[in-house]
């Protein structure tokens, strides 16, 4: 039915119009940018959510290597024990566990590489703390108590790191929103320009149609059909190109062996959003064409 509607006879020779020849290209570029911006915003949001989810309810206690100690291993073991004891006595803490040297080395390996360098560095001890779900722990008081009880112990609730990440993700989302807004504005301007030029070129035909009784909506529908066909063609091309680009970027990201790089993945609902731009662009083009035609025709007798 849509195919029939698209290919149906038109009274206005819009197909060969120089004014609208560039429209599919403009829409393709707009949709391409929109899909990339949208995907970027969704991935940024998902990464923050994932990080936030994995860090909520966990704390890390870091114990610095004491300076000037003759027997370093014994001193560190003593500090770790005291810290663990204090933590386990604190209400609201479910589990506190010191990370082994191997675990700490594994955490640093992506940055420093494995082997001798890590072993030779005076690395601080790390204690992974899990809170009882829903428990309210006074982190400030706990940090003070830790610092007082164990020299060199510092509590990290990941809040600052997470806050920075959320700010980054929000900035990415705002940039994506701005890009979408600009892209929409450009698409609207392109359609308005094409429609106005077409109307100027075919003014004679439009006048004849009016004189034989055509209503504005009859004429507008021909422009709408034309805008629909062109923008759908351009939109789907831009969308396909954007998917190829995203696929390439995902492949490149997956082949990177970086611990903090987010694994690019989208939920099915987000895929639906990614599917939207070509159709949204088509809808905007059709609506814009309709409004532009009515606007121009409204000034004719």
């Amino acid at each position, binding site marked *: 039915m849509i195919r029939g509607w698209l290919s149906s*006879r038109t*009274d206005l*020779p819009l197909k060969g119009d120089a004014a609208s020849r560039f429209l599919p290209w403009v829409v393709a570029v707009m949709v391409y940018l929109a899909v990339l911006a949208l995907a970027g915003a969704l991935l940024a949001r998902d990464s923050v959510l994932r990080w936030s989810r994995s860090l909520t309810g966990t704390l890390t206690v870091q114990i610095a290597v004491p300076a000037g100690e003759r027997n370093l291993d014994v001193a560190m073991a003593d500090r770790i024990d005291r810290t663990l004891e204090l933590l386990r006595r604190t209400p609201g803490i479910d589990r506190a566990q010191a990370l082994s040297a191997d675990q700490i080395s594994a955490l640093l390996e992506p940055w420093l590489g494995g082997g001798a360098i890590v072993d030779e560095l005076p690395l601080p001890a790390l204690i992974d703390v899990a809170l009882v779900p829903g428990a309210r722990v006074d982190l400030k008081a706990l940090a003070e108590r830790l610092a007082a009880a164990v020299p060199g112990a510092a509590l990290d609730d990941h809040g600052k790191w997470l806050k920075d990440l959320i700010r980054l993700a929000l900035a990415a989302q705002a940039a994506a929103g701005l890009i979408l807004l600009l892209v929409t504005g450009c698409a609207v301007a392109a359609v308005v320009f094409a429609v106005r030029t077409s109307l100027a070129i075919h003014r*004679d*035909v439009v*006048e*004849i*149609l*009016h*004189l*034989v*009784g*055509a*209503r*504005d909506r*009859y004429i507008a529908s021909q422009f709408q059909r034309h805008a629909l066909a062109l923008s759908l063609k351009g939109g789907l091309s831009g969308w396909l190109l954007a998917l190829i680009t995203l696929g390439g970027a995902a492949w490149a990201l997956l082949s990177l062996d970086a611990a903090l790089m987010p694994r690019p993945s989208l939920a099915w609902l987000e895929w639906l959003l990614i599917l939207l731009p070509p159709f949204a662009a088509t809808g905007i083009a059709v609506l814009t064409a309709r409004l532009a035609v009515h606007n121009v025709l*409204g000034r004719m*007798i």
Partner: protein
Amino acid sequence: MSYAGGPEIVSDLTFQLAAGSFHFLTGPSGAGKSSLLKILYLALRPSRGIVELFGRDVRTLGRADLPALRRRIGVVFQDFRLIPHLSALDNVALPLRIAGAKEAQVREHVSELLRWVGLGEQMNALPATLSGGQQQRISIARAVIGRPALLLADEPTGNVDDAIAVRLLYLFEELNKMGTTVLIASHNESLVQRFPHARLHLEGGRLERRTA
């Protein structure tokens, strides 16, 4: 009536076309016949005065009211005003399609009419490939295909030979017998005299009604 605030082309004309009547509009070139017709087929609005069409004062009509009135008016333009990229059939079919007629009926009626005006073989031809006379006949066929209540023709026989001109005027008479009000602007005196219809003569800005 004046163009862009210029001098008045026609003014202070008072006349009425009774429903079902047949009139010729005569007068020398530049007398304002085409301007008068343009006002009647709603391509121009009068700068002053009252024009009533089908009992409605055109001054009070909004843009949205015009298409319905225009569909009741068939117009033969002096310069044909055919749509160049549409075939003869599609040009003639225009008023029916705009009115939402069924495609099967459109093709049947248009084909029949085109055959009647002698263009049965040129149905799929584009206007540019046809002679002036053939284009004029397409223009006439387009004007009458919707059986309008009012037919306005601006020099409809200007590009055809006498035999075709007479045949076309018979077509207008047939339409008139079915109730269409007809007003034909023509300077072809011999043709006008062959048909015994009332005449509106426009000259020097004055309109004179002459009976046949």
